[in-house]
């Protein structure tokens, strides 16, 4: 059988030659017959005719001989396709409209599927990724699984005692100073135990992994570079192994380089790995405060459930060793949970992804409806052609297959254009912060995505063309050929009304959704951040603890740096804070108001705390509403003072006037501070975030963390000032890095970047939908008008004025739109609440968005019906009636 199949394929490839041979053979046969007839005494002409007649239908003989060795189905497909191409070329306008509709629908779906594939479907780039789990500890009131880091002694206890895991590892990230050939740089590093890479089953391409001794506390520093860092700083020089680089001023030996394909399994992209050097025994007396993210590879056959209950048992045994404050703190936490690493990495982006996915699916529905509509009108218009084909012997199945082939050609063309469109969309998704793309999921259109697009195209082709094909392949032969156009009106057209209604309804859903998001964005943009946003340049710097400077020394260095930067022409004012707005908080302290009882550690309320320079409030234009700002007279020899923000005053003092009151922050050794001023609250974490109670302290009176943000009021662009600033700082400390240079304006715009992209994307989808729906309404009415020309002619002949005809068609358009709007509103009422989490200060049932969306669609539908209506009004009764 198999052998025969291959022989057949071989023959199929030679089919032109075989056809020729067959023809020659049959001609020989005919000639012999002719000769035979001549032998019977017929004349040459008679013999020839008789032979011809005796041979019967030569074409049929040829075809059935050919069918023996050829593939009739393939032949037919090739034939159908070429006929389809020919007929589409004749109908360029239709083909272009259908391909464009499909391209938009399929393209949008391909782009979003690319993201879905990268984030949810594609397995993590590690061997046996399904064994990898993330252990997290959610807050008690939080709904989600995505918790806070695990304290490191707890991890150490787990690693030591649990035997459910093949490997249990962790990571934490931080920034380091690196001095290469250029100015000092700030780079992201991850500190990981020696078993980190073994857990992921990744090995360095160059050099080796950390050894256990290198991972012990106080071992001399070693480092593994990422391919990116190796390329950018050492031009992939292989001799880097064994060399030393300076990290935070400490010499560290390069022992390995990671493969270029390595993706870090977290929401950061560190440039290098350093050993975590955790103690091998849980050391509760000396824990790292920022904790670690725990990743484990489960043994085969161990369920995650069992693993996590074992881990909880181990934690329980450790409880007596935990410090008291941690005990109290742990009450706010749920017990640790375990989720697949992939889910942990997708995190809260799932919502955005689902929103986008539903949007593009709706868009595809609208595009599909449009194509069905186009196909129906076209099929109606070519009823004559189809009838002719049927009359010439094409069966119904043959006609349906022909129409379907045509549909598939269209949808595959649409899919191909869609992939090009998706390429552009993917670029947008990649460039914007919308999906917070993590290092583990680069977006790319790969084989799976292409297969998806192919599948969607074929399905769209089948769905959008099966209906018209089925309806239209049953032509009323006689009626159609007779040429009575009105007599075929009705077949298929009963589907068209509901299709247009559905199209309008879906468009309304998209449009109202987009309007809600748009209004949310507007609301966010209208929020005043509470601080100066224009003409503020910012950067961050690191006063570097590792030189073991005292706080006083650091304050002195910072003072003189701020002073010398202020002297740069163009700088009007300069302020510094341990955390500038929009750069997160670095410090948080337990708060106790004078007169209130001391709560046990871990139970006291806490508030973000910022160490600031005296000019901080003036530079950022944050009003001090009561009391005074800090001055240079607030030093370590004067009264310890504090400024609180309005939110802090409300939270901790209620109705009492805070001015002059004393409060205590942080560890017991800190002094009591007196509130001397109340500042206005600012949106520290972004425009959408609520105010937090904040405590400001002059850094001259307190400790100064090494990481400091500096803000300058200047009309010059930050890039112009930067060289001068670098120069001034290098004069004081040549090794001090300056990084994260930006403007407040830019930081604000970045903080809403993801909302902006989301709104932009969904609004564009809604606009496309609107155009498609308008085309749908237009197409439907044009068709209706063209089919009822005679009726209109009669009405006009009987004296109906043009205006009346015009109005009656436009009324039909408006009714259609209103019907669609009614359905759309019903769908919205049922579904709009799913949008709540994406909205800002807009209720899901926002009447403005609902009204605006409905009116917009109604207006567009009336506009789209104007052209067909005018065509109807211009019908000349005489021509219309004579035409029949």
């Amino acid at each position, binding site marked *: 059988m198999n052998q025969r199949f291959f022989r057949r394929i071989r023959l199929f490839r030679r089919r032109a030659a075989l056809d020729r041979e067959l023809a020659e053979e049959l001609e020989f046969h005919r000639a012999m017959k002719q000769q035979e007839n001549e032998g019977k005494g017929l004349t040459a002409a008679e013999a020839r005719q008789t032979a011809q007649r005796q*041979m019967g239908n030569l074409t049929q003989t040829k075809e059935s001989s050919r069918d023996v060795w050829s593939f009739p189905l393939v032949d037919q497909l090739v034939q159908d396709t070429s006929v389809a191409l020919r007929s589409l070329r004749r109908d360029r306008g239709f083909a272009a409209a259908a391909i464009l509709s499909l391209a938009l629908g399929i393209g949008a779906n391909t782009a979003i599927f690319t993201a879905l594939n990268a984030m949810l479907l594609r397995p993590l780039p590690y061997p046996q990724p399904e064994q990898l789990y993330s252990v997290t500890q959610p807050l008690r009131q939080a709904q989600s699984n995505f918790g806070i880091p695990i304290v490191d002694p707890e991890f150490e206890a787990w690693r030591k005692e649990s035997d459910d895991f093949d490997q249990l590892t962790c990571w934490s990230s931080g920034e380091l100073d690196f001095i290469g050939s250029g100015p000092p740089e700030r780079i992201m590093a991850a500190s990981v135990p020696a078993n980190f890479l073994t857990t992921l089953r990744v090995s360095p391409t160059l050099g080796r992994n950390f050894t256990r001794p290198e991972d012990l506390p106080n071992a001399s520093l070693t480092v593994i570079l990422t391919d990116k860092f190796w390329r950018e700083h050492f031009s992939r020089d292989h001799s880097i192994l064994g060399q030393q680089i300076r990290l935070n001023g400490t010499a560290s030996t390069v022992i390995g380089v990671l493969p270029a394909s390595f993706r870090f399994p977290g929401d950061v992209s560190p440039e290098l790995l350093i050993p975590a050097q955790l103690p091998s025994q849980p050391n509760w007396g000396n824990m790292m405060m920022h904790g670690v993210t725990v990743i484990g590879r489960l043994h085969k056959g161990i369920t995650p459930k069992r693993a996590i209950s074992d881990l909880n048992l181990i934690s329980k045994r450790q409880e007596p060793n935990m410090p008291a404050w941690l005990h109290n703190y742990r009450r706010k936490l749920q017990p640790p949970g375990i989720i697949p690493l992939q889910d942990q990495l997708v995190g809260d982006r799932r919502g955005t992804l689902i929103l986008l996915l539903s949007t593009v699916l709706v868009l595809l529905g609208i595009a599909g409806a449009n194509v069905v509509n186009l196909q129906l009108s076209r099929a109606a218009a070519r009823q004559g052609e189809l009838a002719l084909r049927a009359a010439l012997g094409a069966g119904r199945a043959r006609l349906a297959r022909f129409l379907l082939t045509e549909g598939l050609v269209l949808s595959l063309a649409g899919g191909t254009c869609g992939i090009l469109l998706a390429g552009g969309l993917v670029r947008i998704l990649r460039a914007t912060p919308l999906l917070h793309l993590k290092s583990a999921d680069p977006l790319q259109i790969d084989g799976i995505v292409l297969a998806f697009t192919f599948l969607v195209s074929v399905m769209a082709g089948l769905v959008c063309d099966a209906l018209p094909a089925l309806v239209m392949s049953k032509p009323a032969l006689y009626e159609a050929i007779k040429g009575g156009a009105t007599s075929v009106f009705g077949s298929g057209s009963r589907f068209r009304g509901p299709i247009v209604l559905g199209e309008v309804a879906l468009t309304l859903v998209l449009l109202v959704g987009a309007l809600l998001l748009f209004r949310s964005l507007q609301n966010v943009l209208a929020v005043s951040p509470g601080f100066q946003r224009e003409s503020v340049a910012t950067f961050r710097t690191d006063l570097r603890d590792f030189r073991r400077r005292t706080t006083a020394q650091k304050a002195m260095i910072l003072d003189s740096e701020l002073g010398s930067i202020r002297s740069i022409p163009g700088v009007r004012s300069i302020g510094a804070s341990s955390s500038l707005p929009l750069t997160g908080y670095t410090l948080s302290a337990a708060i106790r108001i004078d007169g209130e009882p001391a709560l046990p550690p871990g139970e006291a309320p806490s508030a973000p705390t910022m160490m600031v320079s005296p000019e901080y409030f003036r530079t950022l234009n944050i009003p001090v509403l009561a009391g005074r700002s800090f001055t240079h007279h607030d030093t370590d020899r004067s009264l310890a003072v504090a400024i609180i923000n309005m939110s802090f005053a409300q939270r901790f003092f209620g109705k009492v006037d805070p001015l002059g009151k004393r409060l205590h922050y942080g560890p017991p050794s800190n002094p009591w501070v007196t509130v001397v001023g109340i500042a206005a609250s600012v949106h520290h974490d972004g425009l959408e975030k609520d105010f937090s109670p904040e405590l400001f302290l002059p850094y001259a009176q307190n400790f100064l963390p090494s990481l400091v943000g500096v803000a300058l009021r200047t009309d010059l662009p930050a890039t112009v000032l930067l060289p001068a600033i670098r120069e001034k700082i290098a004069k004081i400390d040549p090794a001090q890095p300056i990084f994260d240079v930006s403007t407040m304006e830019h930081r604000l715009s970045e903080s809403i970047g993801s909302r902006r992209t989301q709104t932009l994307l969904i609004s564009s989808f809604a606009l496309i939908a609107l155009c498609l729906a308008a085309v749908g309404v237009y197409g439907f009415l044009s068709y209706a008008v063209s089919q009822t020309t005679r009726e209109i002619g009669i009405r006009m002949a009987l004296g109906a004025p043009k205006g009346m005809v015009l109005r009656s068609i436009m009324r039909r358009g408006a009714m259609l739109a209103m019907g669609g709007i009614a359905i759309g509103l019903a769908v919205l009422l049922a579904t709009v609440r799913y949008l709540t989490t994406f909205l800002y200060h807009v209720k899901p049932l926002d009447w403005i968005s609902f009204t605006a969306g409905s009116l917009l669609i109604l207006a567009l539908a009336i506009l789209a019906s104007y052209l067909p209506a005018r065509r109807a009004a211009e019908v000349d009764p005489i021509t219309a009636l004579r035409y029949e």
Partner: protein
Amino acid sequence: MGNKKLSSEFLPGTLDLLILKTLLRGPMHGYGIAQFIQQTSEDVLQVGEGSLYPALQRLLLNDWVTAEWGASENNRRARYYQLTAAGRKQLAIERRGFERTIAAIQKVLEIP
């Protein structure tokens, strides 16, 4: 891929059998095969071109015959079919099958 046109006149597969049997005598072209069958059966069996050529293609595809262009009796280019070893074997198989069928039919007909 049965030949329906034939089944009304012949038992299925009979044409193949007749062609193979004819070729046992030596290579022959399509016209010659048709002529031979017609003459030998004294005009009882008429082989139409519509059945003959598809059957020849089928035999070719199964490698039971090979085809080669040669000169005919009157010096025209003709395609000569020749039995292969597999064809001989097939002829024996089909012949046995045919004889069994005929015998079976005979038995049915002889019922008094």
